[in-house]
Every structure is written in C-alpha cells, then in structure tokens.
C-alpha cells in the first residue's frame, strides 16, 4: 500500500516539467551555472536508481536533501509537523467537543425547533468555505478585538502558550465544517440507534428514554461516527494547506505548496509521502479503535 503510494508519488513527480536548478538561479543565470547546480543536486542519475535510493533512504529515516533549502528533508518535515499535527488534533478536538453534544441534543429534540435550528446551523457550517470563515474570524478576533494573533507561529519551545494561541483561530476555521458534519452524523446515528430494539429493551428494563440513550445509545451511535472521524482526520490534514495559507502558519501543507512551486522535487516527494503515511496511519488507527470498541470485530483468540 505505502509502496504503491511511493511509486505513484515518484512517477508523478519525475514527470514534472520545470527545472529546479534554473528556478534557484533565476532568469539571468548562465547555462553552465545551471548545469553545475544540476550535477550538484544529483538530478542526472537514471530514474529507477533515484527511486530505489529514495526508498532505501526513507526506510532509514533519510529523506534526502531539499534542493532549494539545502537542508535534510526529514528535518524540515519534522519542524512542520510540529505545527500541522497539533493544528489538526486541536481542530479535531474542537469539532468533537462542539459537534457531538450538539448532535446528541438534536437527536433528543428530533422534530422540535431546537433540532431544526441546530440542523440549519449545521447545514450552514458545512457550506461555509473554511478559508472564508478564517478571514471572518481574523477580522473579528484578531483585527478588531485583538484577542488572538492574526496568524504566524511562535515555535513551541519559545513560548508554548503563544504557540497555542496562534493555533486557536486556524483550528476553529478548520473545525467548523467538520463539527457540522459530526453533529449531523451523530444525530443520524443516534436517531437510528434510538429506533433499535435494544433501546426499547433498555427502556423495558426500567430506564427513561434519556437514560437509555445515554447508557446504551451514545456508545452504539459512536460506531458510525468513528468511521467518519477517521475520514475527517484525513480531510483536516489536507484542509490545513488552505488554512495555513490564510493564517501564514509554517505547516506541512504550506511546505508542500511552496516546494511544488519551487520544483523542489525531493521535498515534495518526502512531504507528500509523510502526509500519505499520516492519513493511512489514521485509517489504521480508526480500524483498530473500531475493533476495540466493537466486540463483534475483535479477533477471536
């Protein structure tokens, strides 16, 4: 699976037109300076050899050197992950903290005004492009109220509170559509579970509807939600590319974006691969969690 992804990435990128050496040296550079740089960057070896080298290197944690930044790709990626991962996780937490209770509330008040209002809200939340929402958020909380920075990022080791503050608005922007989706999925799942026989059984045992939902319903409803959560993490990781641009955060998404425009193939490759690994790992974790929560999926010893 990962090998296939690696092959796809490499194939795509090796076909890319554009010469990184020329880009680095700019429009007035002489052809021999460009040639010298090409040689220095090892762009002349045959493709297969480069692919195998790259693969081998990655297994040993060596992703090669960035051609434009002249630094180990691994180091660049790790630095950027220190922004992107917390951002994604924070967004994930926010969307869960906001989305799930609202979904439960809506399911409980199904058909009542509260439900309608919440679902209208959720529809809107899904429909608002997150970069646009980000712009509105900065306008209100950073420019007008000055509660939070407009963007940028302070490294964690310098001032972790500051770092956290810089992540608040971006993760809110990221979280809005996801929270809306979660609320809707949670509502649907719970409404579904509420109609199931075991809820009736629980009520027959002497529980009120609320108790039954709380003790039996929510946990069962979380199963479909879990699948969505796994997918969402993947989308969030991708969504960071845009939000990082709006808030000028030094994250992995922006790294890839810039690396592509600068034709820094080695960097794009490595970073894309890491992204794919993160996404795949999330899927795997989701599956494992699923099996852990749902005894029906546990492997029998």
């Amino acid at each position: 699976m990962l090998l296939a992804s690696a092959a796809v990435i490499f194939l795509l990128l090796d076909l890319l037109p554009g010469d990184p050496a020329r880009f680095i040296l700019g429009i007035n550079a002489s052809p021999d300076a460009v040639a010298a740089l090409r040689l220095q960057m090892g762009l002349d070896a045959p493709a297969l050899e480069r692919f195998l080298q790259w693969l081998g290197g990655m297994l040993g944690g060596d992703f090669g050197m960035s051609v434009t930044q002249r630094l180990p790709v691994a180091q660049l990626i790790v630095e950027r992950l220190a922004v992107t991962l917390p951002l994604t996780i924070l967004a994930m937490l926010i969307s869960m903290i906001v989305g799930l209770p609202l979904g439960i509330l809506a399911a409980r008040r199904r058909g009542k005004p509260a439900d309608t209002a919440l679902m209208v809200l959720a529809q809107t939340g899904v429909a608002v492009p997150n970069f646009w929402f980000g712009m509105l958020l900065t306008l209100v909380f950073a420019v007008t109220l000055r509660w939070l920075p407009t963007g940028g990022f302070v490294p964690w080791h310098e001032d972790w509170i500051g770092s956290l503050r810089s992540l608040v608005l971006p993760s809110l922007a990221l979280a809005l559509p996801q929270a809306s989706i979660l609320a809707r999925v949670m509502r649907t799942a719970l409404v579904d579970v509420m109609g199931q026989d075991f809820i009736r059984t629980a009520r027959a045992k002497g529980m009120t509807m609320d108790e039954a939902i709380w003790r039996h319903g929510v946990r069962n409803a979380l199963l479909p939600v879990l699948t969505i959560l796994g997918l969402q993490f993947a989308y969030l990781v991708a969504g960071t590319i845009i939000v990082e641009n709006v808030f000028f955060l030094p994250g992995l998404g922006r790294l890839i974006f810039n690396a592509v425009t600068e034709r820094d193939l080695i960097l794009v490759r490595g970073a894309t691969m890491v992204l794919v690994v993160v996404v795949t790992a999330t899927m795997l974790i989701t599956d494992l969690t699923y099996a852990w929560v749902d005894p029906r999926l546990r492997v029998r010893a």
Partner: protein
Amino acid sequence: MSWRHNPGLVGGLIAIIIFAALGLTSLWWTPYPIQAISVADRFQPLGPEHWLGTDHLGRDLLSMVMHGILTSLLVAASGVVIGIGVGVPMGLAAVAWGGWVEWLVLRLSDLAFAFPALIVAILIATLHGPGELNAIIAIGIFNIPVFARVARGGALAIATQDYVAAARLAGLGNAAIAARHLLPNIASLIIVQGTIQLSLGILAEAALSYVGIGTQAPETSLGLMLRDVQGVFLIHPWLSVLPGLTIVFLVIALNIAGDGLRDAIDPRLRRQGMNHGAG
C-alpha cells in the same frame, strides 16, 4: 413518498434550478460581457447600472457571479461524472466478480483515499498547469473511491437478494447482472451521493481556485472571485461577501435537496449517512 411532504427537497430543488438557470443564462447573455475590463468603472457600488456593483477591474459583478456559478457547477458536476463513471463500475465489478477484482478495487480506493484531493490537485497543477481541468480531475479522482464504496456497499446488499440468484440461475453473466439488476437498484443511492459530492465539489473548486490552482482568469469562478479580492476585503467587503454567500447558498441548496432526495427515495437510506468533509 409524495414530494409534497418534502418541503426541503422542493425548496432545495427550486433553489438549484434558479442557480443553474442563472449560470446557464450566462452562456449567451450576461448584463455585461464578463471579460470587458474597464478600470475607470471599478469598485462601483450597487446601483441601477450595475445591480451588484463592479469589481477591481470594473467588471459587472452580477455577470461575474452568474458565470462563476456556471463554472463552479460545471467543475463540480464534471467531477461527479468522473467519479460515477469510474467509481460505480469499479464498485459494481467488485461485487459482481468478487475475489481478486474486489481486492483490487478496495486497494485502489484505499490508495485514492490516502491522497487528499488538495494534494492531488497540487500535483496535477504542477503537471498540467493550473486551470479548471485540473480542478475537475482532482475532484474527480477524489470522487472515485467515494462512489466505488457507495456502489459496492449498495450492491453488496442487493447481491444477497434472491432475485440476483434467480438471475444467475437464468444464465446471466456477471456483467449482465451488474447492469440489469445491481445498477438500477443502486441508482437512487448514487443520485443521493451525487448531490452530496456536487456540493463538496463546489467547496473544493472554491478552495482550489482560492489557492490559485483552480480556475484561472479570464475565466471566472466563485472561488477565483474570492481570491481576486481577498486583498481588498477590508476596503470593499462586499466583493468577498457576494461570492462567499453565493457559495454558501448554493451548497446549502444542494445539501438540502440531497437530504430531501434521500428521504424521498428511500427513508431507510438515511442511516447510510455517507458524508465526507471537503478536501
């Protein structure tokens, strides 16, 4: 179920028809030609001459929005067509043939899932340069596994039905079964998912154009309009609010229609709740 009992579907559909009509009209008529630049007329407020005002190049905003809706819808719809065209046969084949075909389909869609749409778009943009086509392909690729999974999920349920066994008894091959029995019975599922993907496609197009790898001038799309004026947001907020709200309403209309369609076609589908975030 009668559609009269489904105000969401009706409202959503009417809104979509209005949007689509606005977009289609722009093919042969807009109040002003969308490429007519007249710097002297820029940043006009709303008024009798330009109903919704003009942008930073003096173009008529109503014309731009009309055309932008068309582009956004076209890009999203083409993405859905690609997704259905490739994904549904994949999903059906997985069920009808089973075995290694199914394995392959599942792995392929895992692979496609692992590449977030935006990354695909960025990679394609570097290959072919930015443009609508790029957005269409990226959104299409993103849609493929979604439809493959929905088709497979739906078809799996259908395949256990006795009438499929009856068709096999009647000597139908895998392909005939997929075409005659599986496909018609999952069509409603596909339509519902199509509406959802359409709305996601519109958001994705907006995002791609916003970061500069989607639609390019002199064409226009709602996302591109937002990109063009993001710098003057504080001075001329209307220029951002208009396309932004258009996107919001368009997506809401599609979602509501999709939900309504789902309820109308089969209340039982509600539980399937395939819903993905935007890429």
